[in-house]
């Protein structure tokens, strides 16, 4: 699918997100299935202040997949969001 825009995965590298789990998610690009890699672009993002809303730091880490913000992000949530964005059923 040449010319297709890749799915963008942005991992918040702000302090709260990093301490609450982004440090473990940061290397997720290397763990993606081979077939997904050319279609997914993983990068870091700056703190947007999401962690300071709703009075619970435990909502961090935040990851945005194809424009959709995920709270309490973990490996499983991020992978399912990518799968959905890629339009794969399973």
């Amino acid at each position, binding site marked *: 699918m040449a010319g297709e825009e890749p799915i963008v995965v942005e991992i918040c590298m702000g*302090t709260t997100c990093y*301490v*609450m*789990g982004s440090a473990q998610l940061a*290397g997720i690009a290397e763990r993606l299935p081979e077939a997904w890699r050319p279609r997914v672009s993983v990068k870091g993002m700056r703190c947007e202040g999401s962690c300071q809303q709703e009075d*619970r*730091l*435990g909502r961090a880490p935040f990851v945005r997949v194809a424009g959709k913000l995920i709270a309490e992000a973990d*490996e499983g949530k991020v992978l399912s969001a990518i799968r959905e964005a890629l339009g794969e059923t399973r």
Partner: protein
Amino acid sequence: MAIPMISEADRLRREVLAYVIKAVKAGTYEDIDRIPIKMRPKGKPFSRCCIYKDRAALRYRCMSALGFRVEDETDELKTLKSYAEDTETHPPASDPFLTIFPDACSACMESQIMVTNMCRGCLARPCTNICPRHAIQVRNGRAMIAHDLCVNCGKCAEVCRYHAIIQVPLACADACPVGAIGKTDDGRVTVDHEKCIRCGKCIKACPFAAIMQSNQVAHVVRAIAKGKPVIALVAPAINGFFPTEPGKLYAALKQIGFAEVHEVAKGGDDTAIHEAAEWAERKAHGAPFMTTSCCPAWIECVERHLPEMKPYVSDTPTPMGYAEMRAKKARPDALTVFIGPCMAKRTEAHKHGGPDYVITAEELGAWLMAENIQLDDLQPIAPEVAGTHYGAEFAVSGGVANAVAHYLPEGTPKPTVFKINGLNKKNVALLRVFAKTKKAPADIIEVMVCPGGCVGGPCAIAPAEDAAKVIQKRRPEGFEA
């Protein structure tokens, strides 16, 4: 490669620390009593049997975050506010820093080999053939293990073609390298502090987070708030944990109130220089080998379990020891705070009468969370005391031996090195053999109790492999490894 994971227990602990630090800094101690309710609000999901048990566990987590041990509780109605007030007048809990909340312990089964319902009582019976103790017999169409004969070797589990035999672990006891973990009559965890080497592996291993440590960060926050000059002694591993250059982290330390920032890597250089000279001298006197001395959990292991190893352990002070001496000499009026990924450093500091406090990478991370500091926004600064990259690589397995080799006095042949990269029951036995036979496979035995080195410490916040890579990427030109 294993997927790096952060556990919910780690996340809860860090969140608690951040709220406690925020409240201590602001002096709004009454907020601390609300933390359990804030984190487990009415009508929202909970993790244990009910919301109230979660809140009770969180209350004890707050107590340990404030620097006190659960075992020291005398009045169950004492408020967390009152414990916070105690930080102004009472020092934090002393060694042992491990503290247990027994009601959080799930009283897990003893580690054992178990035959599950998947067993089909097959004809081949590899389990009975492989068992070195003849502990397995097939009766009524199913393999049975005689537990009085079984030595938990796990060979039967390996050979079963149906995966019908499983090795059920006891997480805390399996993680302990020295057998310090036992059980009460009702099956809950106990720690024999005479045997415990303070490594903190059980804290990470317990899936119920029933084993905790008493922190010291609240006392440090208080000291800074009172206007005392406080010097941060930053362990080299710390610079592998944050997604930023060291200079920005040092700027953050200044912003949260530290008067000076000293790289413990400088102490690492001191240790390596002295240890290199020590080895040259020992070698000249015919010593068969020498072990490194910088890992405090290793030192505890020698004292408590391997007295025969004592003559072979280097006498050189640790990087933290040298950093502390330098800081106190330059500013006798200042308080010193070691910041690292290690729990045993608290015990080392306690035994040597300094540094004044030890906080962990996790406590620092929570502190930066509490102050909402974005490291990338800061202007990098130089530390008051800086080390070389040889000192910085003390944080990574192999780095200590490498630094010692680098600083060898002229004419000393390069020593061979044997690395203990993560202490466990097996290599403790191996080390005992080295000491007893006065023979080792190399000149220098580098012992790091944590896998990967200090970067794999129990209070680290990034995966050990990533932290090691970050540190090694900063190798200057001409660095010899």
